[in-house]
């Protein structure tokens, strides 16, 4: 069992390396390309695994720690794998004043995770953003890259129910055991 897991991890790492290399082919070896590279790699892999960062550092001929410091400086980059669905609660001024923090509490309560975490079943990841530019619909939650307006605790439950139904539809007969037990 444990052996299997190690093997899977090694495979995954090799895959990350491979895909990162693929993306790097499109860029020149200039430090000013670092952020665009990180954005492309995260766009592909969903986050920035260690292997990808090492690969990028080598490509740009810069210390690993400098890549890491850029990754941790900017809010956009994530170090853990995302969930299938991304939940971004807006805590911009307008949303905050219209109860965005209450909405965040509701998501935290239902998903049982903190911001910047992913649920153990990797279904959802939760994060906050500062103003996505539709303050007029406050409080806003960006669900799978689509801003949803007026998300109050009851709408949180509604959205989650929607995902639940979708999942049931895809797997007739309800939940199948996942191999990720």
């Amino acid at each position, binding site marked *: 069992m444990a052996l299997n897991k190690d093997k899977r991890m090694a495979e995954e790492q090799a895959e990350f390396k491979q895909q990162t290399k693929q993306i790097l082919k499109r860029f020149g070896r200039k430090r000013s390309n670092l952020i665009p590279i990180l954005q492309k790699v995260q766009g592909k892999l969903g986050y920035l695994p260690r292997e990808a960062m090492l690969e990028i550092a080598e490509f740009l001929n810069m210390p690993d720690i400098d890549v890491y410091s850029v990754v941790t400086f900017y*809010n956009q980059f994530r170090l853990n794998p995302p969930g299938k669905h991304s939940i971004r609660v807006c805590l911009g001024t307008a949303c905050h004043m219209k109860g965005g923090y209450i909405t965040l509490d509701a998501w935290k*309560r239902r998903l049982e995770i903190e911001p910047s975490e992913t649920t153990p079943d990797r279904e959802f990841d939760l994060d906050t953003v500062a103003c996505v530019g539709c*303050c007029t619909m406050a409080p806003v939650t960006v669900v799978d890259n689509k801003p949803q307006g007026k998300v109050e*605790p009851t709408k949180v439950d509604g959205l989650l129910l929607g995902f639940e139904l979708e999942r049931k539809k895809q797997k007739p007969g309800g939940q199948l055991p996942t191999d990720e037990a």
Partner: protein
Amino acid sequence: MKAAELPTIVSTFRDIKDRAESHWRELRDNSKAVIMVGTATCGRAAGAMEVLKALRDEVKKRNLDCPVIEVGCMGHCYSEPNVTITKPGYPPICYAHVNPVIAERLIKEFILGDDPCLEFVLAAAEENDLVPSFSDFPRAQYEKKVVLKNCGQIDPQQIEHYIAHGGYAALSKALQMRPEDIIDEVKRSGLRGRGGAGFPTGQKWETCRYAAGRSKYIICNGDEGDPGAFMDRAIIESDPHSVLEGMIIAGYAVGARYGYIYVRAEYPLAVHRAEIALRQAQKLNLLGKNILGSDFSFDIKTFQGSGAFVCGEETALIESLEGKPGLPYNRPPYPATRGLNGKPTVINNVKTLASICHIIENGAEWFASIGTDGSKGTAVFALAGKVVNTGLAEVPMGTTLRQVIFDVGSGIPNGKRFKAVQIGGPSGGCLPESALDLPIDFDSLTDAGAMMGSGGMIVLDEDDCMVEIARYFLEFTQRESCGKCTFCRLGTKQMLEVLDEITKGKGRIEDIDMLMELAQDIKAGSLCGLGKTAPNPVLTTLRHFRDEYEAHILEGRCPALMCADLITYYIIPEKCERSCDACVGTCTVEAISPNKQRIKVIDQEKCVKCGTCLTACPPQYNAVIKVSPPSEVPAPKKGKTRK
């Protein structure tokens, strides 16, 4: 420009313009109806894409010759999704809150029939006898659209629309002028940077033009880090070419070869539309080598900012363009002499650049005739919060806050009372009722402790706690502080801790003095604008709303009933209706249950204070209230309800 090139520029541009105009005429040839759907982010959040699809499906199903095009944001974000229909024989009519069902009806009843569905109308775009028009709105008296002129009127993804509306004529004109004369024109117009600081744009360009160094850069600052603002996003999404045109003219004026549009990655649609615009401009040789046959060459790339507020600061922005963490550095040297890659660089805000083509087209005198003595032109605001007409507004500088909030914004919804307006974002402040008659320009608000900032305006009403909003902004700046300066890094943290305690009712009266002291130290000890202005929200609220701080500290009471630790939800037994279970069902944590008399009671241990029950309780009972301090709640008597 050499004299021999002038005829080429003129004739090349005339060809481009002719083609664009015939393209536009084909669309609006008065023989068929045209439907325009606002699909900027605000529209999309309200469901504009579903409406667009419904309209297109219906048109296809019925085989209609009726183009359905996407346009940007008209600024009436409160009424999204907006659809505008131009049908021969009718004025262009704009509909509000359209959904797929209404969309279908519009096609059936208006496009196919003759019923313009007046029940869904927001207003007509032109004056007429049938429906009230936008010019009848009270706000029309105060608005003056310059930068927002095209927003919501054209398809931002079709360069022909922009050109047919007069676009790129300023570029063609500029290329026939000497760079010095352009700079002179911009200087005489009195244009000041719209990014917040209000630095004279002409002067910045001149410095850059005469700075040593051959390669120079133009950067458009579309970072828009203020967490309550969306003007720049709306402009890039709705009229990207006006920004490009400004950048190209700037490039020609200062002698730059490359430009960058720096847009936040949180604004994917803006990035996407900017990229489409760039490709289309290249295709027509409005960008690239030898623009319009002149000897001026210029290229622009987009760059996605990665979500750090401090990167809106010009030196931090440059660092991040160079692939480093965005830490501001000390000025001088200013970017205009030493910027990106050590080369002279002009950084301008989106709205600054979008104003340029209007100045070149209409002349410096025209621009300078709008606004006040020290601040020329218009100001664009993003109105949000507790105001009826949330959205975008453009007014001449010098308009008062009252006019913007009450005339353009139509005041406070739900009959609530105005309390304050937060202007200038994390660097600005909260101004009370007494400041409402101040004219808005770069200099006037500074005396009141706020600043115009880049245009975010959040209206607050009696339900908003002033201590909490100060705490909110401080939490924001504290998190976004890059950590370089000690006072900014640690001082804001300490201020935040004090404010946290106050909002929890654990503050001490000495804390107020300590906040003032810390604020002074942070202002003095910080290198960039982030730290220098971070204490402003606290200082202005202390100055204008000190009584609220005192109520939190001395009485453990939040007058606005907002701070979670200082309130309790309570169901008034006398008002609670036995047969109603609305709150029980909606409570997200099952904290409400009926007692023996079927009067609903909240289990305070379980309650998470989300307020759902208060919204759920039907207005005819209105039994749920908030109480502050929590000790005011009458203790439940065993078995019996209080009479």
